[in-house]
């Protein structure tokens, strides 16, 4: 007698019900908007004439490359995203997009963004974009994020590179100015993300992500936020005395920096209960405005300089 009964095995392939909105969500549109803006500033402050079609192509490729990094990040991090309230509704942990679909989407967009930028604009920019995607998806997401409390410090380099890629697209080379923009975003990243981590500590702890407040505690994080903010304010103002950006930028940078510093001190001093959470939320919110405003001023300077001959 056979111990194997006759069963009809029905294998129904999974039919995707992912909508276009789910794929757009994989691109992390809010992060992408900041990438587009900082890249646009990198492009606009670059010297020489850059044809608008090539400028549009460059920004589009950088935006798609950033989106591809986001999709690869969501593919790899689906397990920890499912454990955190902030990320549990993302398409992969919510089950609307399979991990394989997210991976394929991220890889295809990475390939097309890098190749298009390289072929249509130049390979310095294409190579830098490829490095940025690799750094975010592999170095940060697959390694640093789950391995060290310095994850967002080192990983912040990926988020700081878009204006450098844009400058390279416009000029075919690198210079001091895009490096300054890189440094501003690089030193902005720790206070920004650690402020977030201070009011999302439970989330990160549940997902076993070694963010600084989880590993070293809230007070050590508050001190680090303050120290990084001091360095950030100094670095953001430095291009003015060094002669790279104008006084309008320098003075605005110091004024905005004073706001960042004041909120960082509030975070450092308010250590208990609701005031502590409120201070962290305020710093997190203001930090976004701070970076946006700094880059907006640079953009405004370029526009004013370009328009000045028309009026004077």
């Amino acid at each position, binding site marked *: 007698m056979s111990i194997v009964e006759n069963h009809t095995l029905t294998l129904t392939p999974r039919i995707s019900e992912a909508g276009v909105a789910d794929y757009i969500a994989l691109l992390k549109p809010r992060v992408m908007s900041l990438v587009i803006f900082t890249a646009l500033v990198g492009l606009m402050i670059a010297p020489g004439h850059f044809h608008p*079609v090539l400028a549009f192509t460059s920004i589009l490729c950088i935006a798609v490359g950033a989106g591809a990094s986001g999709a690869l990040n969501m593919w790899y991090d689906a397990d920890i995203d499912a454990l955190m309230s902030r990320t549990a509704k993302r398409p992969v942990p919510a089950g609307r997009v399979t991990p394989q679909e997210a991976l394929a989407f991220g890889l295809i967009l990475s390939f097309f963004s890098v190749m298009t930028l390289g072929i249509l604009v130049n390979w310095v920019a294409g190579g830098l974009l490829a490095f940025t995607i690799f750094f975010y998806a592999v170095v940060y997401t697959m390694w640093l994020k789950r391995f060290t409390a310095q994850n967002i410090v080192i990983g912040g380099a990926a988020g700081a590179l878009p204006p450098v890629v844009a400058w390279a697209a416009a000029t075919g080379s690198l210079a001091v100015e895009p490096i300054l923009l890189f440094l501003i975003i690089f030193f902005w990243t720790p206070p920004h993300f650690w402020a977030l981590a201070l009011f999302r500590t439970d989330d990160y702890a549940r997902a076993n992500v070694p963010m600084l407040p989880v590993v070293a505690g809230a007070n050590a994080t508050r001190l680090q936020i303050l120290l990084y903010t001091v360095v950030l304010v100094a670095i953001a103002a430095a291009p003015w005395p060094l002669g790279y950006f104008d006084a309008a930028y320098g003075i605005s940078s110091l004024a905005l920096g004073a706001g960042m510093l004041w909120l960082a001190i509030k975070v450092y001093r308010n250590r208990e209960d609701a005031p502590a959470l409120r201070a962290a939320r305020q710093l997190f919110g203001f930090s976004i405005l701070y970076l946006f405003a700094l880059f907006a001023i640079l953009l405004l300077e370029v526009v004013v300089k370009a328009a000045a001959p028309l009026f004077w």
Partner: protein
Amino acid sequence: MDKEKPPGIVLTEAQKKRQRERSIAIALALGVLVVLFFAVTIVKGSGVLVRPM
């Protein structure tokens, strides 16, 4: 006697709608890519073959 064909995979209305939306999005993306390559070719003119490193 003719054997009846198995029905195969039958998509629900929701699946058909999403599939159609995805197809349109892919078509649009490919269209943008084609237009982009065409526009840059026109902009660069004969310089399209010059690829600075």
